[in-house]
């Protein structure tokens, strides 16, 4: 890379290009000097590269802005082209709804304003254009309120610029910026507060009362107000242009041409709640909220930080995660080397976990954040691992309230993380979970983590890893392998079925074709032994042959799938098939899931058969569903959920909210009077508000009974499932409303579905 290129890329970093100096002023002078010399020959290369750097290294934008400001003194035309390019880019981004580019280019414009490259009033015009579009959108009469997410996004962008240029704007165009702020305040009063309880990490109880948590925009507005009352001083945003103010002032401020926001989408042709719901869903997908705050640590860990600094650091971190995906070294080094004068490990942890657990989905696969956390533990071995451990403990304490999907992600993350650090963890701290009932979420969490660890490793190793808490061995998955019915037992005579199984096995090993085997079964086995035995022997034997590995399984299915298909042509038999699979692999949840999934892939079982099996009496007890989105499936699924929940949920009058469900004692009045009064006392104390984490460890006495926990978990899954497949479900929502989500359905069930769909 050319030297001016390296200087641009590395500006602000402690590196050899800048003789390991950390002084921004030095960096800027060096960089500017080099560019100035090259401008004559290489301006066509330099221009796009500056823009590229500004776009992909947004935490360095103040530095780039200053450099451009200095270049403006040298070569006005060059900088004019930069402005023109930026404007074209920005307009493109608005037209195509490229949220990151819009946001970052606005920051760049702000900083260019600080370095006198563009006029403050031009920036204000940009703000006003966006604000006006937003205000129109949320207007009940002139607008299309389903598109509020876009309007919110525009206003967020405006507010996001203020940490970078608020002081300058207030100084240079006080009236104009005041108008904008007043306009934003007005906007906030007419827009609808968003309360996406379906997306919150923890169970939001409606019984919360008066204190409704602020949504993202309201929260940001509050932080900006605090900032403005502090004279717009932001620690986390460098202001290198101040060192060059005397020179920069001499530069010519360019105009920034007009921009326009895209038209708002048309209202649906038939106005209905459903049609608007669909539009809103689309808008949310296109203009998503960037993050949701996950407060893991008590406020004391971040109390030195100004509210606005938290916002800025989050922005920095999210942008590094975005732009350095795939570049492990740079990602980690930028994450830990932000241009801020304070420590921020706790914020770092909270931000990454908030992405890992983000609902409905994080921007990247969870495995990405797993990798980042690992790399940061290695980059900051003295500080970060302890912070991560603290986060795990804090989340573990509150796991009963954590969304079901978040729990799953946490389990997968934690087991994977530990597998990279030799499975070392102070398990003795959690040994107490054995005293909890077996459905208690904390106990289930520990069990699931151990199960996943065993899958990534092997049983004996994990047993060894918990040697400081040997009682936890009880929670390890069964050590055994397959549960083959027809293998014959030592010392027992071989049964007829065992013999049949052996014969079939030999045929398979003898490479008989599926056809031949089908004929053999039809002529010899079925007539003599009947359907049930035939099915069981054939399925178990084939599974056994395919048991040695994943590859063996798919080979058996490929070669002999036809045999299975012949025996199980209809739903009833497919349900029996799945039951056999489940029995054979009862000691290995992973293989059960894989076998059923592969059978689905080979069309040996239909979705409906799976649903039926899932809801069969034996299985209702332990819920797990995974499905492909079809209307009939959702209908049948939701219907089944609804019915099953109706049977078990207490009457709506007694349990209309989740809080009531948790403390419901239903029929068993026979309980100790003392016990029930203890619970009532807990209830009055309530649980801590969700907007701030529990300060330190509270002693959460887990008191929920099995039936109620089952309902809570199931409702949690209904919500998670609705949320995950929201895009696929929305097209069928009318049918669902008519057939399932009726007034007769239990309110808690309906709430769970709506919550997941963000209705």
């Amino acid at each position: 890379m050319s030297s001016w290129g390296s200087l641009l890329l590395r500006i602000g970093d402690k590196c050899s290009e800048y003789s390991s100096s950390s002084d921004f002023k030095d960096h800027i002078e060096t960089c500017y000097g080099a560019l100035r010399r090259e401008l004559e020959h290489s301006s066509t290369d330099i221009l796009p590269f500056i823009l590229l750097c500004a776009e992909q290294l947004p935490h360095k934008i103040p530095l780039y802005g200053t450099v451009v400001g200095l270049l403006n003194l040298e070569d006005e035309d060059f900088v004019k082209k930069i402005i023109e390019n930026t404007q074209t880019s920005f307009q493109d981004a608005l037209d195509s709804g490229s949220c990151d580019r819009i946001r970052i280019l606005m920051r760049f414009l702000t900083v260019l304003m600080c370095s006198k490259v563009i006029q403050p009033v031009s920036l204000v015009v940009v703000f006003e254009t966006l604000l006006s579009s937003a205000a129109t959108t949320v207007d009940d009469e002139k607008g299309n309120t389903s598109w509020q997410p876009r309007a919110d996004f525009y206003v967020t962008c405006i507010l996001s610029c203020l940490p970078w240029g608020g002081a300058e704007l207030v100084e240079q165009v006080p009236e104009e910026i005041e108008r904008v702020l007043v306009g934003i305040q007005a906007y906030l009063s007419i827009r609808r507060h968003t309360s996406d309880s379906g997306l919150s990490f923890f169970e939001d109880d409606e019984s919360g009362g008066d204190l409704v948590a602020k949504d993202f925009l309201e929260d940001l507005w509050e932080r900006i107000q605090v900032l403005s009352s502090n004279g717009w001083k932001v620690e986390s945003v460098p202001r290198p242009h101040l060192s060059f103010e005397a020179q920069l002032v001499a530069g010519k401020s360019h105009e920034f041409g007009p921009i326009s926001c895209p038209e708002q989408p048309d209202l649906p042709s038939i106005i209905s709640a459903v049609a608007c719901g669909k539009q809103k869903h689309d808008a949310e997908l296109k203009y998503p909220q960037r993050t949701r705050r996950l407060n893991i640590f008590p406020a004391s860990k971040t109390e030195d930080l100004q509210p606005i600094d938290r916002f800025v650091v989050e922005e920095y971190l999210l942008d590094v995660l975005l732009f350095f995906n795939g570049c492990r070294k740079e990602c980690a080094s930028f994450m830990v080397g932000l241009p801020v004068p304070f420590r921020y490990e706790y914020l770092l942890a909270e931000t990454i976990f908030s992405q890992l657990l983000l609902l409905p989905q994080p921007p990247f696969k969870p495995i990405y954040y797993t990798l980042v956390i690992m790399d940061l533990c290695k980059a900051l071995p003295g500080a970060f691992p302890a912070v991560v451990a603290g986060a795990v403990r804090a989340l573990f304490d509150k796991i009963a309230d954590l969304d079901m999907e978040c729990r799953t992600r946490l389990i997968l993350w934690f087991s994977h993380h530990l597998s990279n650090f030799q499975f070392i963890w102070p398990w003795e701290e959690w040994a107490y979970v054995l005293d909890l009932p077996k459905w208690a979420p904390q106990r289930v969490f520990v069990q699931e983590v151990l199960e996943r660890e065993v899958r990534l490793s092997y049983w004996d190793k994990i047993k060894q890893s918990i040697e400081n808490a040997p009682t936890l061995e009880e929670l390890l998955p069964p050590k055994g392998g397959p549960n083959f019915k027809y293998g014959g037992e030592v010392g027992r005579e071989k049964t007829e079925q065992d013999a049949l199984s052996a014969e079939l096995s030999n045929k398979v090993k003898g490479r008989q074709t599926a056809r031949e085997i089908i004929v053999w079964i039809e002529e010899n086995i079925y007539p003599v032994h009947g359907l049930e035995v035939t099915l069981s022997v054939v399925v178990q034997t084939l599974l056994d042959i395919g048991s040695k590995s994943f590859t063996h399984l798919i080979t058996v299915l490929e070669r002999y799938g036809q045999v299975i298909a012949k025996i199980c042509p209809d739903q009833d038999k497919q349900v029996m098939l799945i039951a056999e699979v489940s029995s054979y692999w009862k000691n290995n949840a992973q293989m059960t899931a894989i076998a059923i999934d592969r059978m689905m892939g080979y069309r040996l079982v239909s979705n409906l058969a799976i649903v039926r099996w899932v809801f069969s009496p034996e299985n209702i007890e332990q819920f797990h569903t995974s499905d492909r989105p079809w209307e009939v499936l959702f209908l049948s699924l939701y219907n089944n959920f609804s019915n099953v929940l109706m049977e078990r949920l207490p009457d709506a009058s007694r349990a209309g909210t989740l809080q009531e469900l948790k403390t419901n004692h239903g029929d068993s009045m026979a309980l100790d009077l003392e016990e029930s009064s203890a619970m009532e006392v807990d209830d009055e104390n309530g649980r801590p508000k969700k907007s701030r984490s529990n300060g330190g460890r509270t002693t959460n006495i887990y008191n929920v009974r099995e039936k109620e926990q089952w309902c809570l978990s199931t409702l949690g899954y209904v919500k998670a499932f609705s949320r995950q497949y929201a895009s696929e479900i929305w097209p069928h929502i009318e049918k669902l409303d008519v057939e399932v989500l009726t007034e007769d359905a239990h309110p808690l069930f309906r709430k769970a579905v709506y919550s997941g769909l963000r209705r």
Partner: protein
Amino acid sequence: MASLFKDSAKISAYRDRRFNGTQEEFEQSLLNSTTVYIGNMSFYTTEEQVYELFSRAGEIKKIIMGLDKNSKTPCGFCFVLYYSREDTEDAVKYISGTILDDRPIRVDFDWGFVEGRQWGRGRSGGQVRDEYRTDYDPGRGGYGKLVQRELDAQRQLVDYGAGSLGSFPPVMPPHYDKHGGGHGHGGSHRHGRDYHRKRHRDDDRYVRESSKRTSYNESRRDSDRDSRPEKNPRFRESGNSDDDEEDDRK
């Protein structure tokens, strides 16, 4: 994303000699591939472990374990086939350089599995890298093959009178790998009787530990039967030897 730092031109430093085509075609196939090659695995890592880790990047279509040509046992590499390109890229991005079964593994785009590529190409049947390396790696059969042959030759010259204990390496590495009680028979036992016996003979660790763990030694003497001691954690109890092993490796 950050095109600024990624060296996208250099998609893979490894160039497979068996590929029939130009460098350009090679790179093109890597750019479209939905197969990853995984290297530096332990011989004892199972398909299930691979499945569990690699499904976190996406849905897996197939896993093909790399095998020693002679013993037909895993020799430390494998292929994972995904359904989508994006998942393949994620596997390379997020899993390469991280730990599988206590070892940092390498994950690369592969130009595409073809029958025959599952066999090791080293003279001794395993991978080429295990022919010439000089370090002691308990997860990959101990010393490299060349070194092993040297040691064997030396032992033949000098009879220490140790009798059936045979030979032991001159240097005793102080630290066991996690398989502790060493077992040359790790991984799925699907590889049949021949496999067990051959590993038994070659495995340095068996010999080295014979002085340390007599009980283990005793149970090892039963090794001709398929009922393995519990030391091999991945052992599964059905004792059929698998005749159609080769064809399974499609």
